[in-house]
């Protein structure tokens, strides 16, 4: 039989796709953490009106964390996040008083890190109330992790808002006029195509490539890498000055200079 590790009153909240805001649902519920029959840690949400289990997530130690949604207006909204995925589940705490919220969350995070974790609190559902050990403190690693999560939730992982992105320049709309009006520039691009394409290089093949999710992902990750400002070594390989690897802007400026000089590796 599965064993309750922790339980407390909490409702669910859902992200409204249109506004991207998280809205609490009024349904009464409880979050329950159990050691399932399968020996795995289960995070369960039970509807307290119908007594039905409506969510049952298997969690691996250290994969998930339960974090306050700082921008939510009510202040009692939390998100269950996974380091292995972008999946998120939102909840809001429903205990009559918010005094114990922090404790619930600390205990829960303790168990999510280590299911063997000792708690100072046992569940309402099992009607046992024991308080024998200390509230566990978050480790420095946990704090760092939480900070990262909060950072990523506050809307930007970049140190400053970017001015432009390569993904908005290398669009099919921007490239089509190039293909139609300057066909003499096209053959120089062929050596950059995958060597094992099943079709010979052509403008049509090139168009197929720039429409592909693989190409777009490649551009996005190059853009991200450029924004770190650490690509000096890489851009030197393209015949650009090291300074071109310090930002997207610098990279584009260097390319324009290279084009104006007409000394690129492509035409020599």
């Amino acid at each position, binding site marked *: 039989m599965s064993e309750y590790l922790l339980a407390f009153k909490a409702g669910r909240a859902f*992200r409204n796709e249109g506004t*991207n805001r998280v809205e609490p649902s009024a349904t009464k519920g409880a979050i329950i953490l159990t050691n399932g029959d399968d020996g*795995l840690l289960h995070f369960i949400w039970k509807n307290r009106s119908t007594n039905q289990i*409506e969510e*049952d*997530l298997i969690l691996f130690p*250290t*994969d998930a964390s339960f974090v306050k949604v700082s921008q939510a207006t009510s202040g009692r909204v939390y998100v269950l996040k*996974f*380091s*292995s*995925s*972008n999946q998120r589940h939102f909840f809001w705490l429903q205990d009559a008083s918010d005094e114990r919220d922090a404790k619930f969350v600390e205990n829960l995070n303790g168990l999510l890190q280590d299911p063997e974790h000792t708690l100072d609190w046992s569940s309402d559902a099992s009607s046992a109330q024991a308080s024998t050990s200390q509230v566990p403190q978050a480790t420095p690693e946990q704090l760092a992790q939480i900070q990262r999560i909060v950072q*990523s*939730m*506050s*809307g930007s*992982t970049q140190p400053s*808002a*970017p001015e*432009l*992105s*390569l993904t*908005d*320049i*290398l669009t099919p709309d*921007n*490239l089509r006029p*190039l293909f139609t009006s300057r066909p003499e*520039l*096209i053959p*120089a*691009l062929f050596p*950059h*195509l*995958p*060597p094992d*394409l*099943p*079709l010979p290089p052509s403008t049509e093949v090139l168009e*197929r*490539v720039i429409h*592909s999710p*693989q190409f777009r*992902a*490649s*551009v996005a*990750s190059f853009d*991200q*890498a450029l924004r*770190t400002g650490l*690509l000096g070594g*890489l851009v030197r390989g*393209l015949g650009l000055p090291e300074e071109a690897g310090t930002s997207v802007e610098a990279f*584009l400026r260097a*390319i*324009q200079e290279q*084009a104006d000089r007409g000394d*690129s590796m*492509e035409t020599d």
Partner: protein
Amino acid sequence: MSSAEESGGWQLTESDPGVFTELLRRLGVPLIVDDLYSLDSESLALLQPLHALIFLFKWIPESASDSSSASSGAPDPEFPGFFAHQVVNNACATLAVLNALGNIPSLASGPELAELNSFTTGMDPQTRGLVITSADWLREAHNALSPPSAISLDELGLPKKSEDAYHFVVYLPFMGSVYELDGLKQHPVNHGPYPEAGEGWLQRARQVIEARIATYPPGALEFSLLALRDDPLPALQAQLTQLQSAGLDSEVAEIVARLANENSKRERWAFENSLRRHNHTGLAYGLLLALAKAGMLGKAKDEAKQVMKTRLEKRRERGEDMEED
């Protein structure tokens, strides 16, 4: 947990029929994988002989109501077939394929896979999972279709993307019953016997899968279904020769159309797989340089700045976008 520890050198791959089929080719197995858009009898009949269904969905383990309901089958600790636990996140697609292949009777395969199967016979699922994910040749076959990174993103300290946590579950017939093999579960699940007549195991599998899908609230589940089936090309070729020599023109036309269909799909897979293996940074640079030479880069830059400005404004209006990471 860092993704390097967690992935054990297994890279991210796309869950795409073209990727699976290439993996099967590397394993020396004469099967292919196709997308399955419907579970109706006609769609399934076209794909016969069909050996297993792979149900993949965004990592939402089944709700408790699903596992307790009568239709959800019984864990079978005595399962005599091949079953391995998923011990590495990024390996889950390949592991699902192996769990399926290991239970297809008299299946031809390359020497490495045959050796791995016989070596792991009798091991418990956890050990089996560990042995599989430590096989270098298998990891290489799996990684062969993940994008190369000329730029080592690890060293730049960028936020890493882990696999978009798809969960893979295999359904297949085994010794007269439909089994569910889920590498995150302790044991295979027996969903009961199926009738030999008519559609056979697929009829039972359809019920089980449809019941499972129905346990999720509408829209909460992102899933797809893949079919593991015989490579149809040899059979179609043989049929074509036969019909041609019998002079059955209308049947010939139909087979020719199906062959053309299969071949254009293979061409598309080969094209996409080639793009998956390639690093496109050079092409991105080449295109930017061409834009610059054509005098089109300045305008594109200005427009891109405008696009970014609008995007940031919209994000602020929405009160910070939580999906942005």
